[in-house]
């Protein structure tokens, strides 16, 4: 049984990746998870400088999901290299860094810093955070913005480059195409859906930032559809995510066209989820007599049934 997958030049021992913003810097989970047992981990978003993020309350639960507006609190790229990477290396984690910026130059500089550091396996380019005023989603919601930032970072790094796409656009596949055209090695999708929850008693929003990003099982069918659409349009690998909570969910994304998957919100509910996902995926492959999990990718039979 071969669970390994490749994302460009990056080989992962299995397709399970801890999603950015849902796994701290990885080291927080070292007591409960063997970090080397995951395909990879993605760091919390890294800017050039430290950021404090938004005031609490930062999350609210929603039907089968949650809305967050953390505001990309973080220690910045240099402190990450000094304080977190050594332990991640020592624990055998495959570390993908999530690179953020408020300007194109900042994306490039952060990517340079992290490309020079020992133990970074790939760069996930965060052009999709819905919770900050400048940067991020501004790039990710414009085709030229996406092309320009991916192109600029492409020139600054040899590491596998993986733009993380927002679902808050009409046609996410065109953004995958723009990323591919700009030299991306893969794309990851989806980031969270911009959303809002109001307390009807107080008439106040339930997160301090007023709006936030929706994640969890509630968004999964939309995310699966978006992965399927991107698979039709681009050749580069896709890392799928959005509400994966068990092995079947992960397999669904892969059948839709994802070469690997990220798990975020479900890790909050069950930090021991990873071995359960691996077991479930392995038994599925056995039952269906599939030797390599890569053979499952994009195998959905999407022939429409009947006529309109």
């Amino acid at each position: 049984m071969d669970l390994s997958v490749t994302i460009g030049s990056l080989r992962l021992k299995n397709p399970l990746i801890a999603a950015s913003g849902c796994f701290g810097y990885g080291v927080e989970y070292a007591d409960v998870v063997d970090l080397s047992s995951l395909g990879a981990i993605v760091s919390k978003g890294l800017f050039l400088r430290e950021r404090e993020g938004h005031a609490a309350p930062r999350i609210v639960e929603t039907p089968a999901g949650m809305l967050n507006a953390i505001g990309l609190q973080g220690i910045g790229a240099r402190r990450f290299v000094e304080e977190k990477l050594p332990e991640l290396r020592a624990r055998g984690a495959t570390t993908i860094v999530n690179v953020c910026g408020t300007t194109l130059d900042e994306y490039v500089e952060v990517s340079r810093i992290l490309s020079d550091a020992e133990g970074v396996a790939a760069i996930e380019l965060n052009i999709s955070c819905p919770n900050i005023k400048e940067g991020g989603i501004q790039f990710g919601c414009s085709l030229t913005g996406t092309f320009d930032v991916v192109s600029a970072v492409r020139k600054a790094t040899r590491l596998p480059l993986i733009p993380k796409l927002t679902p808050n656009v009409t046609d996410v596949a065109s953004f995958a195409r723009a990323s591919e055209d700009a030299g991306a090695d893969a794309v990851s999708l989806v980031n969270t859906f911009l959303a809002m929850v109001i307390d009807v008693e107080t008439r106040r929003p339930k997160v301090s930032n007023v709006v936030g990003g929706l994640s969890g099982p509630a968004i999964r069918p939309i995310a699966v559809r978006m992965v399927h659409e991107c698979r039709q349009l681009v050749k580069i690998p896709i890392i799928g995510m959005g509400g994966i909570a068990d092995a079947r969910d992960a397999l669904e994304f892969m059948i839709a066209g994802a070469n690997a998957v990220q798990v975020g919100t479900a890790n909050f509910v069950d930090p021991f989820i990873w071995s359960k996902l691996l077991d479930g995926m392995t038994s599925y492959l056995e039952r269906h007599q599939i030797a390599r999990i890569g053979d499952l990718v994009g195998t959905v039979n999407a022939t429409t049934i009947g006529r309109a």
Partner: protein
Amino acid sequence: MPVDVAAPVIANRALSDDYNVLALAAPPIAAQAAPGQFVMVKASNGADPLLRRPFSIFEVLRDQQGSPTGVSILSKRIGVSTRLIYDARPGQTVACLGPLGRPFTVVDSPGEAWMVAGGVGLAAFATLAEALRARRVATTLFYGARTGRELFYLDFFRALGVELVLTTEDGSVGEAGRVVAPLDRLLASRPSSSRVMLYACGPEGMLAATARVASKHSRPCQVSVERIMGCGLGGCYSCVVPMKSDTGGFHHVRSCISGPVLAADQIVWD
């Protein structure tokens, strides 16, 4: 090291229409628990409700030989998840992850310990009181609630030899008003040579008021904060508290791993 236990419900004791104490069989959590730590609890399978909820470890349960067998949580019914906890029945299992967070620093005799509890904030103090009394520390519980019917476990604390100062907002039991008033008064009457450690857990306003009173009387104060929490392990950055920074500003710390017990004089209170 935290463990996740599918914990069978041993007992569920309703204290009122809103409050209950849920006893869960979880030996590996009970064996590690320290006063002030918490567990992340989910009383249903499936995605709605989705996330676990944080609860102070209220009691550490033991068998007749004294071996730890489980933990209990004190819950107030305010939403869907706490309704499930209120309605849980023996035989059912509840996902229970813990112990989590940094515990209280337990003082030694001849120091004194004054615990300040508001409402469901009492939950942090049963195991702390046991630890303090095991060290023969003179311990007082200042305990405020809306009404006398919502003052719970008084006999438990009395049996440990804890002195009680009770307040209710409706004046039905103890002094009428808020719990911080007698705290302020009694602190003012103590000689400054005495060593008093304050511990506080309860609503945010009560914690801020306790912090002010502690500062006014130059007493150290450990508060156990309550925040909306996503994971309990430092992964999600939901549960932050603004703490004073060296530069005169603030920085956000995650109350799940840097707390829930924090130094009151380091918090930037609103």
